[in-house]
C-alpha cells in the first residue's frame, strides 16, 4: 500500500503500524510526534495504530528555533 509520509509518497507493508513505519525509517519513537490524517497519535498507541492505504502521516521532532 501507499502512505504519504511527510508529504512524500511511500510504499509500506499492508497493515503496518505507526511503530513499524518508524522502525523502517530508523527513527527513535521517543523523540518524535506522529499525526495520521491530521490527528495526533499518542505515543502509547504506536504499536497498535495500524495504517491504511493513502493515509497521510506526519512525523515531526524538535529542531532549533526561536
Amino acid at each position, binding site marked *: 500500500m501507499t502512505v504519504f509520509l511527510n508529504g512524500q509518497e511511500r510504499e509500506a507493508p499492508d497493515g503496518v503500524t505507526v511503530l513499524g513505519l518508524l522502525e523502517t525509517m530508523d527513527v527513535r519513537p521517543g523523540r518524535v*510526534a506522529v499525526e495520521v490524517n491530521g490527528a495526533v497519535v499518542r505515543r502509547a498507541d504506536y504499536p497498535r495504530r495500524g495504517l491504511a492505504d493513502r493515509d497521510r502521516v506526519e512525523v515531526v521532532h524538535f529542531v532549533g528555533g*526561536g
Partner: protein
Amino acid sequence: MKSDTLIIAGRSYSSRLIVGTGKYPNPDIMRRAIEASGAAMVTVAVRRVDLSRRGGDAILDAIDPKTVTLLPNTAGCYNAEDAIRTARLAREAGLSDLIKLEVIGDEKTLFPDTEGLLQATRVLVKEGFVVLPYTNDDLVVARRLRDAGAAAVMPLAAPIGSGLGVQNPATLRLILEEIRDIPVIVDAGVGTASDAAVVMEMGADGVLMNTGIAGASDPVKMARAMRLAIEAGRLAYEAGRIPRKPYATASSPIDGSIRRE
C-alpha cells in the same frame, strides 16, 4: 533572588530571559551560549523529521530538557489550524503543555495574524495548553489574549530577527500598564544588550530572543551580555530611576567653592 524570577502559569523559572535555539554556528556554541545566558527556558521549533538524513536529533543531543524547560513554538504557521495541529504535535513530542503560539500574517515582516492568533489561543486554552502567544503591540489584542486565557502575552519589540529594539515604546508601555495579572514577555526584535535593558526598565516581566544572541559575532559573549542587561534593567526598574529634567542639577555642592573675588 526575586529580581530574577519569572513565574508562568504558577511555575517559577530562575531567569527572566528565554532564548531560542535557532541559527547558531554549531551546537557547541549554542550549548555554551545558553549556559552563559542563564536561561531556564529555551524555545524549539517543530519540524518534519528529515527522512533522507537518518538520525539528526541534534537539538535534544545538545540540550538537556532536565536542566532547561523546552518551549516549543508554532513558527512557520500561517493560520490558526496549522498552529493548533503543530501545538498538539509539540505536546506529544515534548513533556509539557507549554506552547509558544505563533500565527504569522505576513512573510516579509513575520508580523502576527492577530485574528488567527486569538482563534487558536481560544482553542488551545480549552485543550489545556499553557499558551504563550507571540503578538504585536496592539493593546486591544493583548487584553483579548489575556481574557482568552493566555498564560502570558508576548508582544514584539520589532520584527523577528531585525535587531531594531523597541520601535514603539508608547504602545508597549500601554500594554505593560494594562496587563498586570499575567506576565508580559517581550518577544522579538532585541538586537543588543541595551535593547533588553530598556524593555526590562519599562516593567516587562521577561524577554525572549534568538537572533540577537545566535547572530552576534561572539554568541557566547553576547549571551552573557544579555543576561547581565536583563538583570540590570530589572534592578533599575525596581530601584526607581531619577526623573528626566531639561536642565542640569549640580551633583557637587553649590556653595563653598574657590572663586576669584
